[in-house]
């Protein structure tokens, strides 16, 4: 298992705190998953049609944005195809769910829209109306 060899030893509590921030992404997903009742979920439709429409790139971009925004209660999952039968035109479909609230679905979520959803909906609570289903 690779470890980043530190350029120099940590010499203060401050340095330790900064370094830890950089590693948060390592374990975030695992720690968030341990407490399902507090977790906000992003589900990305990953059926064959979703993958063809670019769902994997969308998912990875959203994931990086979640870490960049330091959202430590969000998990991103691949789920089975969410499209209605025979109609794949809305893929990639993304669902955002907050505990105890009604979920919001988005259609044709490309990388840019995915990032916007994280920045607006998850970080600030503003639904991205233009992509909403």
């Amino acid at each position, binding site marked *: *298992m*690779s*470890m*980043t*060899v*530190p350029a*120099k*030893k*940590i*010499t*203060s*509590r401050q340095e*330790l*705190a900064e*370094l*830890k921030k*950089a*590693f*948060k*992404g*390592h*374990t*975030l*997903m*695992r*720690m*968030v*998953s*341990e407490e*399902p009742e507090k977790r906000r979920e992003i589900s990305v439709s*990953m*059926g*064959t049609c979703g*993958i063809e429409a670019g769902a*994997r790139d969308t*998912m*990875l971009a959203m*994931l*990086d944005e*979640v*870490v960049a925004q330091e959202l430590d209660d969000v*998990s*991103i*999952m*691949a*789920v*089975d*195809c969410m499209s209605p039968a025979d109609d794949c035109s809305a893929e990639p479909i993304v669902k955002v769910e907050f505990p105890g609230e009604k979920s919001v679905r988005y259609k044709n979520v490309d990388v840019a829209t995915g990032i916007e959803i994280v920045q607006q909906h998850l970080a600030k609570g503003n639904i991205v109306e233009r992509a909403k289903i």
Partner: protein
Amino acid sequence: MSNYRLQILICGGTGCVSSGCLEVEDALVESLRKHGLYEETKVIKVGCFGFCEQGPIVKVYPDNTFYVRVEAKDCEEIVAEHLLKGRPVKRLFFKEPSTGERYSHHRDMPFYETQVRVALKLCGIVDPENIEDYLAVDGYDALAKALTEMTQMDVIDVIKASGLRGRGGGGFPTGRKWETAYNAESNKKYVICNADEGDPGAFMDRSIMEGDPHSVIEAMALAAYAIGADEGVVYIRAEYPLAVNRLKIAIEQAKAYGLLGKNILGTDFNFDIQVNLGAGAFVCGEETALINSVQGERGEPNFKPPFPAQVGLWKEPTVINNVETYVNIPQIINNGADWFQSLGAPGNPGTKVFALAGKINNVGLVEVPMGIKISDIIYKIGGGIRGGKKFKALQTGGPSGGCISQENIDVEVTFDNLEKVGSMMGSGGMIVMDEDDCMVDIAKFYLDFTVEESCGKCTPCRIGNKRLYETLENISKGKGKIEDLEELRDLGVIIKDCSLCGLGQTAPNPVLSTLNFFMDEYRAHVVDKKCPAGACKDLLEYVVIPEKCIACTLCKRVCPVDCIIGEPKVIHVIDQARCIKCGACEAKCPKDAIVKQ
């Protein structure tokens, strides 16, 4: 920075390595590559998930799916269906034996539901071979806090207020031990981690070191800071190669980050740890014997007092604590004494890890709050007695402990309560016995172990325990006399009173506790020459129940010594004088007409 979309955790504890987790890892990586998922997936070998019997266990994040008994051939399906398309592989979910229900998430499983994880919090979550994982989850925060905000006495006061008691068996208050060492005048002091884990049924210390070695290191640094030590020793048995290896990797990484060594975090605190391999004698887990062994002398105990906190390693004040005791400490510093007090029972705060084994449905490592009822451990977590048999006893405390019977099954597990019912906490072995286990045989089994492990320094332990063993052996062979039972008890008490160290002082416990709670069974052996559980071979008789026998001659034909008398239409009889008790006839009889009694 790139982040992984998926993380797959494979249990890489000793238990799962032996059930094939390495092959599973290879197969997973191969399938991930094939499906182009390798770059976005992180595969990590972590420490024990506790549910060893169901291993190898594979956990998939972010959904937190829990797969059991995964084999290499299952990996392609996991990758192609679950990881790629989001369809979990249901056939690999755990199936509860008593209800048949399947669980996708470990937290819903009865085995985990009642557990509270403090000592094992990070086991199975962080990558034990990568300090970055530990740093990402509050790692070394407690040390940083102590070094920058707290005086030595502040640290000791928090540990004292938390009420933490030693998990190595004695239950001694940790904060008080640290205070004694702090108050001892000397400019050289040591801290030792006791990772000898000599109880044959226990493996929690091993699992902690394999799964979360940095918590142990951080805790030792905290102890060193508190008492004013600058050197630490981990005494670990050489039979734990994986734990030794992970610990050494962790120490190297901590040094690279400057979390061990000189001027830690820019303060004037210096601390280094060395690893000392023990040869695995049970008595070397006793603290004074352990210190002798580290000094290169014979691993024999010394008389106490003085205690190691006053006169320890190289005659200097030394704090020695158990692995599980240590891992609680960073969390106590981070979360406060009140948090720790809020877990567990009055006077016995926190949790305890037990190694649950024996005739029970779910075996493995379980961590429960102190004060939980024995019956909850057996029936809720353990899923009840295997094969629907009847519970007979719970053996706790390993070779130094005793057997707890049905009448005490609702006792709340604390250091004090277990002693009250004639057993002890020990290091946390818990072996469930059912109606087929003979209590004389069990007592004999443990005594055999202690006789073997006695260092021989003092007579009551060396000779006395041997006598106890011989008497038990006679009883199990049907040669016991009723006076033997009184003698067992008298001799046991003398050995307890006159032995130098904890080994001798506790060795008679398995005998005394079974005498107390299962006197009827001992009597049956000496008076009726019968073993009610049918375990002592010499006391068994195979007999034909005449009412059931249809005289088919099958038994007669399988008997290797030709001692069954009978012919077609004549009810068969076994000649006891010649029977060698092989059981072949019982297995063969189509009418269950042959029974052992």
